[in-house]
């Protein structure tokens, strides 16, 4: 069973502070949606709203078109994995996974069967009688996942699922969670502040900023076509330049700009200023070159003080790119440049670079 989730103009105020300021979101059955945002952006609150753990001031939460605002958490059929995993410390792994089945008063034989199925699903089939205290972090997380899925919920909610794991394990568990989610085919909403994690796991990423949903789209579209400067800067590295309706403006003529061009570091190359004459280019002084395995990361400063980041292939001869050297960057493929247009396109946009 997997449900379609619809959130309509949800508002939540905690004390004096408006945590959610009109959030709307739709997810088809079986989609993996990640709420991505800085801390304090309201993403965990939104997750709690879906779980029924947070009261909403106005708006609607619909599961398969049905209003669930008045349903308490235990009647929503949601499976939640908390950041701390919240395994019951006095129960064995098997008893933890059986808890939702016990709550639903299923017979013992069925409980045992489902527990085994769930633990096999998360590759912990032999751990039924272990105590949660004797498990490693990754194993605990998988037990929490098995427990959340045991009662066949309509939607799975993951609150910062990787926060307590070290980096290597984190990457493995991202793939693992994605595999389990696809195998079960359950609608899933996850919360994270790690953009790599969001992009690895999700079909849709929703960027949250100060209690509002800024953009919701596939990871690729978010990266290629961000709706505003915040999204552009939040997801990956971005160089922002003034642009008008035709496209990029030459550096230093930003006054007539009506939009912002987003150029990703990998779309910039080092060019010979003479050859590239007539094309858009930006001059500057190298500040830092660092080798990062799959690329050289070149950071330079323009005369106006703007910092520009460029990715160079790892086999580049970087010996001339010493800090202080003059360098000119051009754009490989102008089609890949995305221009953000402000709502009022007639007004020239002042760029703070």
């Amino acid at each position, binding site marked *: 069973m997997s449900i379609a989730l619809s959130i309509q103009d949800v508002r939540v105020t905690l004390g004096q502070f408006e945590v959610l300021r009109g959030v709307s979101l739709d997810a088809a059955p079986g989609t993996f949606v990640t709420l991505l945002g800085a801390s304090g952006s309201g993403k965990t609150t939104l997750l709690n709203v879906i*779980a029924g753990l947070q009261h909403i001031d106005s708006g609607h939460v619909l599961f398969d078109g049905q209003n669930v605002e008045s349903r308490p958490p235990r009647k*929503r059929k949601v*499976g939640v994995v908390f950041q701390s995993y919240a395994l*019951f410390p006095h*129960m064995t792994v098997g008893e933890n996974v059986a808890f*939702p089945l016990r709550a639903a008063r299923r017979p013992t034989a069925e409980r045992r069967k489902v527990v085994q199925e769930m633990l096999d699903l998360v590759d912990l089939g032999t751990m039924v009688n272990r105590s949660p205290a*004797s498990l490693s972090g990754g194993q605990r997380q998988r037990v929490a996942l098995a427990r959340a899925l045991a009662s066949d919920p309509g939607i799975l909610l993951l609150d910062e699922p990787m926060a307590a794991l070290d980096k290597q394990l984190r990457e493995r568990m991202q793939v693992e969670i994605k595999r389990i989610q696809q195998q079960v085919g359950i609608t899933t909403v996850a919360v994270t502040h790690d953009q790599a994690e969001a992009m690895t796991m999700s079909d849709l990423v929703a960027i949250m900023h100060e209690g509002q949903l800024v953009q919701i789209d596939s990871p690729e579209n978010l990266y290629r076509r961000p709706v505003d400067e915040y999204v552009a800067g939040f997801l990956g590295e971005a160089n922002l330049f003034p642009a008008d309706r035709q496209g990029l403006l030459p550096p230093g003529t930003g006054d007539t700009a009506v939009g912002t061009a987003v150029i990703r570091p990998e779309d910039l190359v080092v060019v010979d200023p003479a050859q590239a004459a007539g094309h858009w280019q930006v001059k500057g002084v190298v500040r830092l070159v660092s080798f990062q395995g799959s690329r050289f990361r070149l950071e330079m400063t323009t005369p106006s003080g703007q910092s520009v980041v460029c990715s160079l292939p790892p086999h580049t001869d970087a010996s001339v790119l010493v800090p202080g050297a003059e360098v000119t960057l051009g754009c490989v493929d102008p089609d890949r440049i995305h221009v953000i247009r402000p709502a009022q396109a007639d007004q020239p946009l002042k760029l703070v670079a």
Partner: protein
Amino acid sequence: MTDSPLRRSIGWYRIPILIVAVLTCLLFYLPFLVVVATSWTGTSYIIFPPEGFSLQSYIGVLGDVEWMDAFKISLRVAGIGTVIAVLLGTLGALALTRLRSRAARRWIRTLFIVPMAIPPVAYAVGLYSVSLRATALQDNLGLLILGEALLAVPYVFVMVSSGLSQADPALRPVASTLGAGWPMIVWRVDLPMIAGHMLAGAVFAFAVIFDEVVLSVFLTPVGVKTLPLQMLTASQEELSPQLTAASTLVSMAAVLLLGGYSLFSSRRAARARRLSRKAATV
């Protein structure tokens, strides 16, 4: 001595600290040791150092109907009182975790703990005047048990609250998203987690009630005596070795109860530590 952190950090300055510590210990236990010693004197009056060695005062206490009756009454009062105190204290602590308002939580917590500081005489007089009005409460142990239980409630409350505060606050929300209603959450999530703390609270409550004398003075029916009351009367009549023998027996029981409990709980804590260490290396 091995290379302990104390030795490494403060060197020879630790000597005066050790001396103070030893003196404090002596101050705690010397009077008790004197009482123990006087109880085996061969004389019929209390004398220190004891003259000779005999168990006659012990035999006297254990064979005396009055002492044994007082002991049984105290056992009953402390037993029932402990059950009531554990029940009320635990319910109070559980209820407190379910309050949303932080200010209300703080106030109610204070109100639960303050009774520790109120002199028992105040309770005793208050309850005594109640017993004058309510005839149903006269001539039985009901009011005494109730009063003693109320005195012990704060101890249970503090113990159980500390147990609840150590638990992951996400446990209850997670249980409710997994479909559990409140009876199941209390029974399968809260209670198993605080069982150890309830036991600790019970041990303290029992010790407090068993030793309490002020309420007994006011609230015991005519002709009935709790053990502390019996000791008090005995000490007013004559200082016989029977009194010190009874004190020794009660103290031994208390030491066994509390010592046994702390041994049991520290062993459990050690097991939990071992488990989590093992998990960290996996």
